[in-house]
C-alpha cells in the first residue's frame, strides 16, 4: 500500500515536473517558468551546465570555448528559473539566451572590437624586443612583436589575462582591460646571470617548432668558447638542422644547402661573408646583438634571394636610460662595447669594436726576415632616435676586415703575400606607425664585400707579382609594411630594389722582366634586382592558422631579365598546449652564386651573378614537423624536409680558383664564367630532431639530424648522381649547462658530424697520344707520355668523422661598479684529430703512397674574462 502511495506520489511529482517543463518550453504561454533548486561547488562550468541539462530535461547548446567552459563555478540556486541559473553561472554580460522548444541556446554576443598595440622593451635599457609572444588566457589569441618590437591586435572589448614571454626574460602576466583602442609599452625584465636557476627559454612557456630558431644571446657566454672567443654561430651549430663545415669552417650547412645559400642580414642589410679567421669565428661575438633568428623552412615572403635559410640579426639599439657596456679579453682578441642615451628616453647610441692581436704575437716570435701575421677587426655603430611618438630613425653601420700577410727574405730574394677580405654594411631605417594597425618601415642600405689575394716576389733580376681581386657592392632601398586587417588577418607586404655591382675576378700577373704579361679584367657587371611580396598571417580558428604568401623577383643582368614567382604556404595546427604541428611549402630563388672549390674557409670564393647562360637557382622545399611538450621539463621536436634545387652552380671539372689566377683567360669578359661553370640539380632530404630537458639548475638538449644531399650535373661524374661534398649524413650535438651555484656554471658541448666527401684517385696509369703517320707509315717525332688519374665515382671517399667534446667552467661575481665573468674553456678535451684537409703523400718507411689527414686543433685550453658595467 505504501509502495502504491509512493508510486502515486512519484508519479504525480513527475507529472507535475513535466507539466512545469512543458510550461517552460511553451515559454510564450502565460504559465510561469519552472523553477529549480540547484547546488554546485568548484565544478567546471561545462560540467555544471551538463548537470543542469539533466535536471531540467532541456538541452543546452553552447560553445565551451566562448563561455570559458573550463572555469570553475560554484553556486546555490533555490527555486530559480533555468535562464536565471545559467546567466549566473556563465557570468558574462554578453550572454544571450535563445529559447526554443526543449532547447536553450547560449550565445555570446560579439563585443565591440578595439585595437591594442604598442612596443615591448627591455626594462632598464628600453631596448625593443623582437619576436616576443603575447598569449591571451585560454590561448584565445596570440600575437608577436615584429622586427621593430611593435605589436598590434584587434580583439573584442573585455578583460584579458595576457602572458608575455621572451627567451632570456622573466615571463610577465598582465591584465588587459580593453574598452577602447589602447597603446602601451610593456617592459620585460631580463633574467640575471646570477639567478639561481638556469635561464629559461621560450620552451618553458611555448611549445616551439624547430623550423625557426631564436638564439638566446644571453646564453652564449655560458657555453665553452674556443680560445676564449664567444660566438653565436657556435651556438647555432648546436641546434637541430644546423651543420658546420668542419673545424675551420663555421659556414652553416642547412638542409643540404651551402653557406652561400643562407641569407644573412644585419639590420636589414645583407652580408656576403660573415666569418673571420678562415671561418673560425663569425663577425659578431654576440654582445652587440639584440636578436638572432634562424629560419630553415616556411620562409616569410619578406625574404628572398637565397634558397637555404634566413639568419636575421639585429644590433642592439643602445640603452636609452643609462650608459652601459662590456669589454672582454680572450687569447685571440679583445672587444669593447658601450651604449647609452644621447637624449634620455628618446635617442641612444651603440658602439662596439673588436680586434685580434695575433699579428703582434707572431711578429714578436718570428725572426726579422720572416714575418707573418693575421688580424681581423670589427666595428659596429648604431644610432636611433624617436621622432615624436610614432616615428623612429635608425642608422646602423658595420665594417670588418681580415688581413693575412707573410713576408720572408732569403739570400736577397723577398717573398710577400697578402690576403685581405672584408664586409661593409650600412642601413638607414625609418619606422613609421601610421596608425595602431599600420606599421611601415623604409630602409636604404649599402653592402660591400671585397677580397684580394696578392703574391709578390722580388729578386735582384727583377720582380713578379700576381693579384686576384673580387668584389661586390649593393645599393638598395625597400619598404616593408605590416597591416592588421583584423584579428585573424595580419597582412605584410613590401617592395625592394637593389643595384648590384660585381667585379667577379680581376687577376693581374706582372713581371718586371717582360712587362705586363697578363691582365684578366672581367669587366664590372651591373645587375638590377627588384622584388615585391604580400603575405597574410591567417588565424583560421582556435586550432588552425597559416601563412599564405607570394613573392615576385626580377633580376636583370645585361640584356637578360629573369622573373621568378615564389608561392609560399605554411599551415599550423595546435590542438592543445602540448602539441603543435606545422607543414610548409616554399619556393625560393637565388640570383648569385658563390663559387668555391674547397671546404676551407679561405676567401678563395667568388660571387658570380646569373647571366645569359647561368640561370637562377630555384629551390622548392616541403617540410613538416611537430613539437611535443609533455610537461614543464621535457620538450621534443621533429621536422621532416625534402628540398629540390635546380641550377645549382659549381666549377666545371678540372677548374679551381688557381685556374682563374693562372689562366690566360682566353674568354675574358662578362661571359668568362659561362665557360668554367656548370649548373645541375641538388636533392636533399632528411629529418631533424631535438630533445630538451630543463629542470631547476640543469638545462640539457640533444639535436640530431639525419640527411642526404645528392647532386647531378651533365658535365660532372659522367652525368650520374653523386653525393654532395658537404653531405652530412649524421649530425649530432649535445649541450649541457648546470648551475652549481648562483655564480658558478659548468657547461659542456659535444658535436659529431659525418666526414665530408672527396674524390680520391683509385689508380694512375699512363697514356700516350698518337701521332699521325704519313703515307709511308712514318710517325712524326715522339709522343710524350701523359699520366692519368682515375677517380671512379665522384666523392666516393668520406673523410673521417668530426667530433669533439668541449667543457667550460664560468664564474660570475658582482663588483662595486659592474659584473665580472671569468671562464676556463677546454676545447677538444679528448684531443681528437679531426680532419681539416687531406693531402696525398708518400710514406718513406713503407714506400707507399698515403692519404694524409691534416688536423688543426688539438686539445686547447683557454681563459677569457669579461667585464660588464
Amino acid at each position, binding site marked *: 500500500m505504501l509502495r502504491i502511495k509512493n508510486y502515486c506520489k512519484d508519479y504525480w511529482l513527475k507529472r507535475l515536473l513535466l507539466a512545469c517543463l512543458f510550461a517552460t518550453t511553451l515559454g510564450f504561454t502565460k504559465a510561469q517558468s519552472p523553477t529549480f533548486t540547484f547546488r554546485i561547488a568548484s565544478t567546471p562550468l561545462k560540467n555544471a551546465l551538463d548537470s543542469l541539462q539533466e535536471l531540467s530535461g532541456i538541452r543546452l547548446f553552447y560553445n565551451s570555448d566562448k563561455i570559458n567552459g573550463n572555469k570553475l563555478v560554484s553556486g546555490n540556486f533555490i527555486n530559480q528559473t533555468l535562464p536565471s541559473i545559467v546567466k549566473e553561472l556563465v557570468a558574462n554580460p554578453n550572454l544571450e539566451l535563445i529559447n526554443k522548444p526543449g532547447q536553450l541556446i547560449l550565445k555570446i554576443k560579439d563585443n565591440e572590437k578595439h585595437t591594442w598595440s604598442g612596443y615591448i622593451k627591455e626594462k632598464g635599457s628600453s631596448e625593443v624586443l623582437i619576436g616576443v609572444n603575447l598569449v591571451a588566457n585560454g590561448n584565445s589569441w596570440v600575437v608577436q612583436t615584429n622586427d621593430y618590437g611593435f605589436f598590434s591586435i584587434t580583439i573584442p572589448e573585455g578583460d584579458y589575462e595576457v602572458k608575455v614571454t621572451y627567451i632570456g626574460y622573466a615571463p610577465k602576466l598582465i591584465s588587459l582591460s580593453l574598452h577602447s583602442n589602447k597603446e602601451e609599452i610593456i617592459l620585460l625584465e631580463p633574467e640575471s646571470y646570477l639567478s639561481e636557476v638556469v635561464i629559461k627559454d621560450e620552451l618553458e612557456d611555448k611549445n616551439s617548432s624547430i623550423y625557426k630558431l631564436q638564439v638566446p644571446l644571453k646564453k652564449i657566454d655560458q657555453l665553452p668558447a674556443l680560445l676564449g672567443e664567444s660566438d653565436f654561430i657556435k651556438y647555432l651549430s648546436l641546434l637541430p638542422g644546423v651543420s658546420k663545415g668542419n673545424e675551420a669552417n663555421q659556414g652553416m650547412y642547412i638542409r643540404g644547402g651551402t653557406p652561400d645559400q643562407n641569407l644573412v642580414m644585419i639590420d636589414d642589410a645583407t652580408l656576403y661573408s660573415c666569418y673571420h679567421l678562415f671561418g673560425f669565428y663569425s663577425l659578431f661575438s654576440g654582445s652587440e646583438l639584440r636578436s638572432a633568428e634562424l629560419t630553415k623552412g616556411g620562409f616569410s615572403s619578406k625574404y628572398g634571394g637565397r634558397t637555404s635559410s634566413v639568419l636575421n640579426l639585429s644590433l642592439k639599439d643602445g640603452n636609452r636610460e643609462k650608459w652601459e657596456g662590456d669589454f672582454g679579453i680572450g*687569447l685571440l682578441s679583445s672587444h669593447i662595447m658601450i651604449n647609452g642615451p644621447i637624449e634620455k628616453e628618446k635617442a641612444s647610441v651603440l658602439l662596439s669594436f673588436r680586434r685580434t692581436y695575433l699579428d703582434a*704575437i707572431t711578429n714578436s*716570435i718570428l725572426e726579422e726576415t720572416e714575418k707573418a701575421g693575421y688580424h681581423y677587426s670589427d666595428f659596429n655603430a648604431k644610432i636611433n632616435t624617436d621622432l615624436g611618438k610614432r616615428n623612429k630613425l635608425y642608422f646602423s653601420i658595420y665594417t670588418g676586415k681580415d688581413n693575412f700577410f707573410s713576408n720572408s727574405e732569403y739570400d736577397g730574394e723577398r717573398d710577400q703575400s697578402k690576403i685581405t677580405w672584408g664586409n661593409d654594411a650600412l642601413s638607414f631605417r625609418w619606422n613609421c606607425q601610421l596608425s595602431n594597425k599600420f606599421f611601415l618601415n623604409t630602409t636604404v642600405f649599402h653592402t660591400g664585400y671585397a677580397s684580394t689575394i696578392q703574391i709578390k716576389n722580388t729578386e735582384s733580376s727583377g720582380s713578379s707579382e700576381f693579384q686576384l681581386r673580387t668584389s661586390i657592392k649593393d645599393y638598395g632601398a625597400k619598404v616593408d609594411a605590416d597591416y592588421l586587417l583584423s584579428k585573424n588577418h595580419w597582412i605584410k607586404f613590401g617592395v625592394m630594389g637593389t643595384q648590384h655591382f660585381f667585379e667577379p675576378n680581376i687577376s693581374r700577373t706582372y713581371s718586371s*722582366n*717582360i*712587362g705586363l*704579361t697578363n691582365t684578366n679584367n672581367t669587366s664590372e657587371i651591373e645587375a638590377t634586382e627588384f622584388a615585391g611580396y604580400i603575405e597574410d598571417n591567417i588565424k583560421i580558428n582556435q586550432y588552425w592558422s597559416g601563412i599564405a604568401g607570394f613573392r615576385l623577383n626580377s633580376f636583370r643582368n645585361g640584356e637578360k631579365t629573369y622573373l621568378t614567382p615564389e608561392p609560399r604556404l605554411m599551415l599550423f595546427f595546435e590542438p592543445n598546449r602540448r602539441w603543435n604541428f606545422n607543414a610548409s611549402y616554399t619556393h625560393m630563388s637565388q640570383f648569385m652564386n658563390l663559387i668555391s*672549390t674547397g671546404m676551407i674557409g679561405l676567401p*678563395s670564393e667568388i660571387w658570380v651573378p646569373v647571366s645569359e647562360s647561368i640561370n637562377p637557382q630555384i629551390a622548392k622545399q616541403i617540410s613538416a614537423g611537430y613539437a611535443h611538450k609533455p610537461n614543464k621539463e621535457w620538450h621534443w621536436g621533429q621536422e621532416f624536409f625534402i628540398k629540390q634545387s635546380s641550377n645549382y652552380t659549381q*666549377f*666545371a*671539372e*678540372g*677548374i*679551381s*680558383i688557381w*685556374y682563374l689566377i693562372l689562366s690566360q683567360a682566353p674568354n675574358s669578359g662578362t661571359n668568362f664564367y659561362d665557360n668554367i661553370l656548370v649548373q645541375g640539380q641538388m636533392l636533399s632530404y632528411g629529418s631533424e630532431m631535438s630533445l630538451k630537458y630543463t629542470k631547476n639548475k640543469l638545462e640539457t638538449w640533444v639535436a640530431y639530424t639525419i640527411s642526404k644531399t645528392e647532386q647531378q650535373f651533365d658535365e*660532372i*661524374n*659522367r652525368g650520374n648522381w653523386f653525393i654532395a661534398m658537404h653531405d652530412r649524413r649524421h649530425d649530432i650535438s649535445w649541450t649541457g649547462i648546470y648551475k652549481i651555484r648562483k655564480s658558478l656554471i659548468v657547461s659542456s658541448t659535444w658535436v659529431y658530424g659525418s666526414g665530408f666527401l672527396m*674524390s*680520391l684517385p*683509385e*689508380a*694512375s*696509369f*699512363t*697514356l*700516350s*697520344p*698518337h*701521332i*699521325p*703517320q704519313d*703515307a*709511308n707509315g712514318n710517325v*712524326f*717525332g*715522339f*709522343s710524350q*707520355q701523359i*699520366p*692519368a*688519374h682515375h*677517380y*671512379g665515382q*665522384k666523392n666516393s*671517399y668520406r673523410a673521417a668523422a668530426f667530433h669533439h667534446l668541449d667543457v667550460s667552467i664560468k664564474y660570475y661575481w658582482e663588483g662595486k661598479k659592474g659584473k665580472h665573468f671569468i671562464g676556463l674553456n677546454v676545447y677538444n678535451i679528448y684531443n681528437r*684529430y679531426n680532419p681539416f684537409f687531406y*693531402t696525398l703523400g708518400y710514406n718513406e718507411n*713503407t714506400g*707507399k*703512397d*698515403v692519404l*694524409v*689527414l*691534416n*688536423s688543426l*686543433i688539438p686539445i*686547447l685550453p683557454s681563459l677569457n674574462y669579461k667585464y660588464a658595467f
Partner: protein
Amino acid sequence: MRFNLILLILLCFWYSCQREKIVLEDYGTDKGIGVSAFITESDLMFNVYLSNSRKTIGGIASEEEPLTNALVTIYSTSDSLVIPYDGNTSSYLGIPSPGFFKQGVNYRLNIEVPGKGVYSSETQITNYYVAPIIEGSVKQRTVSSDKYYDLELSWEDQTGYKNYYRLVPLVVMLNDSEITDTLVAPIDGSTILVYDDKEAIDGIIKVKTSILSNTFDFPPYRVIGVKYYLMNVDANYYKFHNDLKKINYFDQLNNPVILQGNIKNGYGIFASYNGASEKTFLLP
C-alpha cells in the same frame, strides 16, 4: 712574455698535431692496366700503348713499371692481328695486312695480362668527311728575347653529322745546310687538342694556336713552318681526351676530373679516327 710563451707552446702543439695516414692501397680497387689505342683506315702500323696502373700519384707508371708481357690481339669480323711488345716502355706495335682496317667494320681489342686478367674494348671506324684546313693569319710577336708565332686556322664543319675533331700541330724544321733535310715534331706532345662541333659558328670552327719558336732551336735546323693534321675522331676519343686536358696535376684544389674510358675491366681508351686533312703554314 709569458703570454707569448704560452702561445708558442700552443703553436707547437698545433704543428705537431698528429696526422692520420691512410695507405692508398687500402682504398678502392685498382683494375690493373691503362690502355691507349687509336685506329684508322690508313694506318700502316698500329700502336697500342699499355701501362700498369697503380695507386700512386707520382712518376710515369709505364717507365717505372713497364708492362711487357701482355698478349695483345685485335680482331676484325674476319681477321685478327697480334701486336707484340716493341721493346719501348709502353708500346706494342703491329703491322696490319693491307685492308685490315676498313670503314664500317667493328674491331675488338683483347689484352691478356698474365696474373692480372683479360681486358677488352670495341670500336668501329666510322665514315666521316674531313674538310680541308683553311689558312688564317700568321702573326709574329716578340716578348723579351722570345719569338712567338700566333696562327689562326679554320675548317668547315660538315652538317648532318655529329662531329668531333682532333688537331695535331707539328713544327717543321729545315736543315739550312741540307735543303732537302726537314724535321717534323709535335709542338706539344703532352696536349691533345680536341673540338666538338658545338664550337662551330656559322658552320666554321676557328682555332688559334701559338708557338714559341725558341724552344725548337736545334742548329743547323730552324723552324720554317707549322704543319697541322686535322682528324675526325669518335665520341669516345673526344670525351676521354677532353676530360684529360682538364686535369691540372699541380692544383690539388681543383674539381677532380672523372675520366670516361671504354676499356672493360681496365682504364683508358680504344677509339678510332677517320680521314685526315693537313696543311702547312709557312712562317714569315
